[in-house]
């Protein structure tokens, strides 16, 4: 990570450090910052570099590993979609209205962020399991089962990841000037068209950020999924099973494969949601 420190000091020189430049302060920042960045990147790098091409391609050819990754992608996609469909309207409501108890609702939405993953799994099992409050009647009435199905995986993923969409989209909506919506109304657009043509496009970045975070959180979830739905295995569960059965090496090859898929999509979504910032109309 020497390049990071170098970038920091190159910068200090490049911008013609004023007598004012708090050199000591920035040096400490870059030193600690480089340590932390290294701590976050080195394990991923070490994991990737540990793999020989042959071991890696062997694992990539294993049908069960590939199925698990596809299942994870499907689950994360559905979870992000559902979070967007229900979370974006909720975020709009929270951003545009105020009512007694709004703070309580916001706190409730944040709760899953601090629920330990295995606790989340057990709580979901109580509701969506074979004898669950909803799981039993739903299976009996409409045949919708959450055990051993993609539906269960999506439920587990959605529970731990939906708050991100609501929070980021709410911030996105709050940043949209309500006067622009009012102008659209006077131009003859009804509330729905105003929402679609003005509000939604202007809150796009916040919403995309939320969806990206929800996707990332969904695809990475292990604890809640493993309790609610052991089979069919999502990729993180499969990797855990490989680790228990065959040890580190076999698990590492599958881990690298999943890492690439997971991070690739994440970085694309992240780039999309950052996009060119909508410049302020000043």
């Amino acid at each position, binding site marked *: 990570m020497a390049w990071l420190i170098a970038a920091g000091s190159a910068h200090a020189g490049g911008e013609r450090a004023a007598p004012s430049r708090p050199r000591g302060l920035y040096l400490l920042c870059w030193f600690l910052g480089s340590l932390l960045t290294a701590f976050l990147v080195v394990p991923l790098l070490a994991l990737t570099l540990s793999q020989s091409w042959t071991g890696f391609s062997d694992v990539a050819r294993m049908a069960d590993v590939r199925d698990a990754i596809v299942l994870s992608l499907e689950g994360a996609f559905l979870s992000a979609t559902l979070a967007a469909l229900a979370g974006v309207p909720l975020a709009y409501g929270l951003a545009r209205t105020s009512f007694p108890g709004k703070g309580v609702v916001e706190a409730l939405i944040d709760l899953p962020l601090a629920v330990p993953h295995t606790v989340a799994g057990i709580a979901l099992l109580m509701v969506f399991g074979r004898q669950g409050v909803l799981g039993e009647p739903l299976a009996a009435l409409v045949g919708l089962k959450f055990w051993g199905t993609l539906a269960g995986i999506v439920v587990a993923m959605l529970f731990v990841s939906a708050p991100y969409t609501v929070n980021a989209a709410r911030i996105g909506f709050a940043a949209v*000037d309500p*006067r*622009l919506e*009012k*102008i*659209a*109304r*006077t*131009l*003859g*657009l*009804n509330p729905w068209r105003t929402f679609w*043509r*003005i509000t939604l*496009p*202007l809150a*796009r970045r916040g919403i995309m950020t939320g969806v990206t975070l929800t996707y990332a959180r969904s695809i990475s979830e292990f604890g809640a999924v493993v309790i609610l739905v052991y089979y069919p295995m999502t990729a993180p569960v499969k990797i855990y099973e490989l680790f228990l059965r065959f040890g580190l090496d076999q698990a590492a090859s599958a881990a690298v494969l999943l890492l690439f898929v997971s991070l690739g999509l994440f970085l694309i979504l992240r780039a999309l949601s950052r996009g060119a910032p*909508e*410049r*302020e*109309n*000043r």
Partner: protein
Amino acid sequence: MTDAGVAVETLSLSLGAFRLDAVDFAAARGEILVVLGPNGSGKSVTLETIAGFHRPESGRVWIAGRDVTALPPERRKIGFVVQNFGLFPHLDVEANVALARRGGRNGSGKAALPLSGDPRALLKYFGVAHLARRRPADLSPGEKQRVALARAVAGAPDLFLFDEPFSALDAQTRGELRDELKAFLRELKIPAIFVSHDHSEALTLADKIVVLRGGVMLQSGPTAEIFQKPAAAAVARIVGVENILDGRIAATDGGIAAIAVGDRTLRALAPARFAGPGTPVRLSIRAEDVSIAAPAEASAPAPESEPARNRLDGKILGLRALGALVAIEIDCGLPLKAYLLGPQARAMKLGAGDAVTVEIAGDAIHVMTG
């Protein structure tokens, strides 16, 4: 109510702690009405109620002869322009204008306008056709104003509403855009309600003025009347009168009232409402109506025959350059502020401490009983 204009009838509503109380005014086709008041006076609430964003508790809103009180904003046919002009930042100029596609069904008698609903034609009319593909962020304030007008006109409005569109601009740009806006409004012949806290803006733009404070309408009337005959000291302050004096009616004789201010007596046109001797009054005198006679003239006998011309001897306290003007503070037993043009003041070689004689025409002193 008025046929092609706008009318607000005893509009009242409460919003949290704020209350708008029985606001009542009208503007005819082609007129510009300015709602003038300090921050928190309810100017914007009034405007947004006319636009349909607040439901009034009582009262009605008429636009072009239609009672729109129960209609949502999108059916009121309003062109709404806000601070910074409120262009949609994610759409280019043409898309901003194309968003309002009601150009076809034109409102009451606007067929005479050289405007179709075609965005390109509108942009051309406002001289900004070359900007069609630009984003709002890349436009100058002047270009933004023209695009905002083109967009508003695309909605075939029966009424324009302006919510302090210039308040973020510097003084020079503000003046330029104001003149341009006035010219366009004159040409478009659509009534306009313009909200402002700046009395000089009101003076330049308005045909009529409504003065609002704390949700209450203090006065309304033609611009000249509001500026020259404010109904109360509060209005005088809002329209920027420099001299507001406390006095008491000493005597009235015909149409002339003698008013005691401190130990001086000023003669002015008597107030329209009867006010007998002893009535406390307030005087509103514009600084440009306080004329300064050169010290030499002071010795000339005052032509007492002229019934309502006031002459006061005093001393200059200080001078201050204000652009083309010089503001002069004078102590005549009562404090007065006078304006002179810079060259006039220089020619008279006035300086602090100089003795001067001040003249004020009786009809330049407005007597307020409120």
